[in-house]
């Protein structure tokens, strides 16, 4: 970052960043990291988010892009969002830009999309981001091998749930299978969304522990 290459929102973003402590930054980064992990699930083996296309691992690429865009002012940090929300929106927008460019290049039968070719956007359209979380569309066809991995992952979770004999886990997983959203599930199992979040945390913590003990990812 140099004085010549800072973006049009450098001053206004810097003013907002003056109010952000190190702990707040850490929370924002942790939240953005989780978002990226979930967003990129099963999407980095083929297509737009491969190292071949981005030159660096997708997680590294989008993560770095998001916070550097705020720091150097190439993206405007809008008043409507807090820092984690703003980072998440930049990540999603960039992902969609890369995917569009990749598809376009693929259509033109180009060998590889150069990073510099992506349109550089400075603002984010305010949209209902939550409606995109359940978007089932995949950027790429999935291979047989990948499908097997997906099935394995599914079976491991399924097995963990049945062996846990935890009522909350069983109900939570049943609702996931039905494709319900956060508020739907909370209503169905008679909990508040915050209580449901706690169940999910416990679910993931125990699932990770179980997988680690069994030597799986």
């Amino acid at each position, binding site marked *: 970052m140099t004085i010549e290459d800072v973006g049009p929102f450098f001053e206004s973003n810097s003013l907002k960043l003056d109010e952000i402590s*190190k702990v707040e930054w*850490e929370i924002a980064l*942790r939240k953005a990291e989780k978002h990226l992990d979930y967003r990129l*699930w099963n999407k980095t083996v083929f297509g737009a988010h491969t190292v071949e296309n981005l030159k660096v691992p997708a997680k590294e690429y989008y993560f770095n892009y998001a*916070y550097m865009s705020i*720091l150097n002012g190439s993206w405007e940090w809008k008043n409507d969002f807090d820092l984690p929300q703003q980072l998440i929106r930049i990540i999603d927008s960039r992902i969609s830009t890369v995917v569009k460019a990749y598809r376009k290049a693929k259509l033109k039968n180009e060998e590889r999309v150069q990073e510099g070719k992506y349109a550089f956007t400075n603002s984010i359209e305010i949209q209902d981001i939550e409606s995109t979380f359940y978007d089932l569309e995949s950027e790429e066809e999935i291979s047989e091998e990948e*499908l097997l991995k*997906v099935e394995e992952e*599914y079976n491991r979770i399924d097995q963990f749930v049945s062996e846990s004999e935890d009522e909350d886990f069983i109900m939570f997983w049943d609702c996931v299978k039905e494709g319900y959203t956060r508020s739907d599930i909370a209503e169905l199992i008679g909990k508040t969304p915050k209580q449901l979040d706690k169940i999910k945390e416990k679910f993931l913590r125990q699932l990770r522990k179980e997988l680690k003990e069994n030597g799986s990812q």
Partner: protein
Amino acid sequence: MEVNNTLKVLKKFYGLLMEMNYHKEPADFVEELEEENPFISMHLRNVILHRTKAKAILKKKKYLALKEQFIALKELGLDKLQELFAPKERIEMVKLFRKFEELTEKDIDSINDDQDFLIFISSLKDKLEDKDGAK
């Protein structure tokens, strides 16, 4: 369960996790902050480093803007600038005007921390803008 269906369920599952993560409050991170995360530590260091750089760039930008203003005002000349103020105000500002007259571009560094003089420069600029706007 059919393979395509398992894929669909897992996609929904990660969608749900995304939604929950989006709503997670800062207070709910207390426990997580205790866990080491090398990926986050590395990027947090990078953020802090760039914040320091950004602060230095901001200071430099402020200085360059001040220099530019100062040169423009100098070019306009002291007499014209004094005309912007009422005679009574001029008397009150005599010291600041004298300082302005004596200063050269090379002395800009020394006025960067002189708050009274910076306010004076900015009031000159405001007066000029008001005058131009009234035309």
